[in-house]
């Protein structure tokens, strides 16, 4: 059986492939994906919000042209919503429609036990795959060429669900009592994400590969913004990334993530900002910082930060131009 995972041949291929669909990977990320495929293990990704945890799954799906099946976790999520459910309505409707026919067939039996035996035959009909409503986990197992199963924000689910997930993820199979065991045709690549709302159980952590994605460094962030925002000038890009990086070092409640950098870059572009200046930053800071107290904390430092972000850049230019002046 052919699976859709063939392009995952080497770490370089993964980095390049993800790059094609606009995801700027790192050695760690590509290694994790490579191992996840090689060892058939889920990847558990931790890290601050908005650094591209979910996006990794989406990009993988886009690159490999595989379906992305997403299971968003929340408190109270249970098997019925994650795995499968019987289509009660359809079952009921079919029995109603087939009532006559059933009566005929069952009525043929001379005595009660014969009728019952016949009825038992139909039971299997009504609990067959036809009436099975596949939820994300089962759905992911049924894909012919494999799939990317994204279990998002697993830390928000209950512990009971976590335990249930262990069973599914260890063998990539699901048992439906009425039908039997459904084994994945091609095991999906499973990506779990966590924002550390709650400490995950050891058992789950031990069964997954662990990947921590932190805030990107200057170079990577520039590449990411360039890939996402069309037509941004080099000067502005380098300045704004430098500014964001220095904001992240400040003592604030919520540090801006890549998603916010990208939004900010788009905002600045929309305002036709050629380069960073104090007024622009002041007017658009609410795109970058989402807490009133953070904005208040950063505001007094804006002139200094802008000077530093712009300064190093233009400083480089004057240094090269300086001999002419002298």
């Amino acid at each position: 059986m052919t699976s859709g995972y063939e392009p995952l041949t080497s770490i370089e291929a993964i980095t390049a492939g993800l790059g094609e669909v606009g995801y700027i990977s790192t050695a760690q990320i590509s290694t994790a994906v490579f191992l996840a495929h090689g060892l058939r293990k889920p990847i558990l990704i931790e890290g601050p919000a908005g650094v591209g945890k979910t996006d990794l799954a989406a990009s993988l799906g886009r690159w490999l042209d595989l379906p992305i099946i997403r299971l968003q976790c929340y408190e109270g999520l249970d098997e019925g919503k994650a795995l499968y459910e019987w289509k009660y309505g359809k079952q009921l409707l079919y029995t109603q429609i087939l009532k006559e026919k059933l009566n005929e067939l069952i009525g043929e039996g001379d005595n009660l036990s014969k009728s019952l035996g016949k009825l038992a035959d139909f039971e299997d009909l009504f609990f067959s795959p036809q009436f099975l409503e596949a939820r994300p986990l089962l759905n992911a197992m049924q894909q012919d060429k494999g799939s990317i199963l994204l279990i998002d924000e697993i830390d928000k689910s209950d512990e009971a669900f976590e335990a249930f997930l262990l069973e599914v993820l260890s063998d990539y199979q699901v048992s439906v009592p009425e039908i039997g065991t459904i084994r994945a045709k091609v095991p999906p690549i499973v990506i779990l994400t966590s924002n550390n709302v709650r400490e995950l159980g050891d058992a789950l952590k031990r069964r997954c590969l662990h990947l921590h994605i932190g805030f990107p460094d200057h170079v990577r962030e520039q590449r990411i913004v360039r890939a996402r925002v069309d037509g941004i000038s080099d000067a502005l890009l380098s300045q704004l990334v430098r500014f964001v990086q220095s904001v992240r070092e400040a003592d604030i409640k919520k540090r801006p993530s890549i998603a916010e950098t990208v939004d900010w870059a788009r905002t600045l572009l929309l305002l036709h900002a050629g380069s960073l200046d104090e007024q622009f930053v002041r007017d658009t800071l609410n795109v970058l910082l989402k807490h009133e107290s953070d904005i208040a904390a950063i505001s007094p430092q804006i002139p200094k930060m802008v000077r530093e972000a712009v300064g190093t850049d233009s400083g480089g230019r004057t240094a090269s131009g300086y001999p002419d002046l002298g």
Partner: protein
Amino acid sequence: MERQISNFIRALRSSDVKVSTGEALDAARTVAMIGYGDRGLLKDSLACVLAKSEAEKDVHDKLFDLYFAASNKRSSAQNEAEDREDGEGDGESGEQDAGDTAEQMIALTQPGNEQALATAVERAAEAAGLNDIRFSTQTAYYAQQMVKAMGGEALQARLLEALQRSGAEADADAQRMIDARRALTMAARERAERAFEVFGAGETEKFRDDVAATKRLTALEAHDMARMKLLIAKIAKRLAVKHSRRRKKTSRGILDVRRTMRANAGYDGVPFNVIWRQKKRDRPKIVAICDVSGSVAAYVRFLLLLLYSLKEVIPDLHAYAFSYRLGDVSDILEENEFDGAIKKILREFGLGSTSYGQAWSDFKTDHETVIDRRTTIIVLGDGRSNYGDPRLDLFSGFAGRAKQTIWLNPEGPALWGTGDSVIPRYAPYCNQMSHVATLKDLERAIDEILTTYS
């Protein structure tokens, strides 16, 4: 090669990275997949497979660099050794006299033979069982064992012989051997130190933690404080994990009619899925009343630090401090950084002669309403009330309103009731009266309290 990975995992385990057998197998499969060729790749991969949190990743990266710096030399050295053995296979008769060994050892220390020296050192490390090193004091011992394994005795014999002879040539010979011996010892020592960093350092930290946890809290010195804070954080995490799980308990027997009907609406009301009523566990609610007079103050710090580190499990936490007058210190603890808060509390409440009676009457007037049937009252104090009225009437009232009353006493049972201690008179109203002298005691006490809420 398998040995390399299993030893590395041993090193990780000794540094408190919990690697399960399954993960060890994964690591072996990973290595089989990607090989040892690319160190950066190997590091990223093993970090992915073995280290499952940010803290563990830090430890892993540090150990990886240390360990594979050592084993890098070893593997290349081993290859060479194998080559050599192939070549010499039949030439060697296995019989070597002391002279040869000594000469070989001297040759190792000559410039240009670094690779051969590294090989010899690695072999000696293997022979001496260097991976069992646990404490830094063992480095000298292991270095000695390694020199011995390399043939140090032969060198020693030659040296003695040379010293007995006289003449310039013999002196030079002796000097040569002394230099060689020193160089070998240095190399062995360096290797042993690195092995300690990899295999022993974590173990030593653990040992120190154990010592700190069982030391009397008043006997702790200033430089222990940082360690204690880390330890308390660890304990808090352990307790939090233990007690934050399974908030629900199914009690079979009582039918939850409302929810059963709802769940079975789809079956035309025929109850296929029966839902039983669930007993909700109470959220722990703790009122800590702390004597902050001189004799008990040292303990208060640890109790409060532990309780406040458990905020996740005990959302409803109130702290009161007294020596003469009693006051609510929850706000001070919430608003200030911990050390500052403790200082402030001691300054505000720590003066004045202890009076339990006065404290209880203050508590009665201002704060009694915080106690309800879910509350655990923790009293931390030595019960020495300077012969004042203990106001048992008030205390029994509080104890009666609360779920339970636990008295933690830094004094040993032998001292209870001596002098101005009124502990025995409070005892009948407390569910438990325990002696708390070390961090271990404290952990046990808090663990027991939280267990009553499960």
